[in-house]
């Protein structure tokens, strides 16, 4: 979508665009169409063209999802303000709700920093939102995602588990994976539960333990004779 604005100066035109569209200057994609060259007798107006990303508008409207109860609205508001105060504004929408679970999706231009390295920032945001939401309704767990990071990450972990299990079977030597949180470790255990010839167990202390994949002594894999 393209809109045009006019003003005596460039700043004035931009200010008009900002009030009209209710956006900050750094959210606007501006092109100066007419720089307002000084004519013989008077200065002509500055004309700017503002390009609006259509998906921005779309996601804005999807925030107004129908049937939000008070709890959901409060949690969404909290997260929206939190992101805003972090300096990475975005829109929050519900992806699904299940018994005891509320899944939220963050749509933002700043997704990569909101997610962070290995989802570190996303996990921290999710934790704070859960502490807040727990005061309102302790029986619901809030899951926060952006750009489908969590789903992609889960797939990656399962693939990694299969690859590591193959290596263990081939080499006969156990393999220690990098530290993971309980949720991630459970994914690995479950993925390899059905794989014959290997077993898994967690090692270490604290929240972030490491999964070790070893040859299953009771049911060793069939090794090819050469």
């Amino acid at each position, binding site marked *: 979508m393209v809109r045009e604005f006019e003003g005596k100066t460039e700043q004035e035109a931009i200010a008009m665009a900002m009030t009209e569209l209710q956006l900050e200057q750094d959210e606007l994609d501006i092109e100066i169409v007419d720089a307002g060259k000084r004519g013989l007798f008077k200065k002509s107006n500055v004309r700017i063209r503002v390009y609006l990303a259509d998906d921005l508008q779309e996601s804005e409207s999807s925030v107004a999802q129908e049937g939000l109860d008070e709890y959901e609205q409060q949690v969404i508001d*909290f997260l929206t*303000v*939190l992101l805003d*105060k*972090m*300096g*990475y504004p975005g829109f929050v929408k519900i992806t699904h709700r299940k018994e005891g679970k509320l899944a939220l999706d963050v749509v933002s231009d700043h997704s990569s*920093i*909101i997610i*962070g390295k290995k989802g*570190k*920032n996303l*996990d*921290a*945001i999710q*934790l*704070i939102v859960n*502490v*807040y939401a727990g*005061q309102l309704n302790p029986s619901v767990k809030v899951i926060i995602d952006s750009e489908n990071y969590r789903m992609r990450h889960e797939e990656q972990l399962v693939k990694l588990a299969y690859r590591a299990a193959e290596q263990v079977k081939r080499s006969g030597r156990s393999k220690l994976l990098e530290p993971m949180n309980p949720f991630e470790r459970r994914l690995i255990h479950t993925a390899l539960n059905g794989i014959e010839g290997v077993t898994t167990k967690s090692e270490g202390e*604290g*929240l972030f333990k490491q999964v070790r994949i070893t040859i299953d002594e009771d049911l060793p894999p069939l090794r090819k004779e050469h």
Partner: protein
Amino acid sequence: MEKDLVEYIAKSLVDQPDEVAVNVIEGEQSTILELKVAADDVGKVIGKQGRIANAVRVILSASAAKSGKHVQLEILD
């Protein structure tokens, strides 16, 4: 702004939001934020094994990454 961010998070987690205060100590390369809450609320902003405090620190450094400044959070008790 980082002070605002910490204040917002702290206020939403404690029982006595009016008692939340953040003191900013501005250094050349780093900023230290001192968070003060009501005595009964200290546990709420720290959490078991410091989980909440650490999450706030992660959020804070993500936010500060924009300015390239190093921000430290200290919880006073």
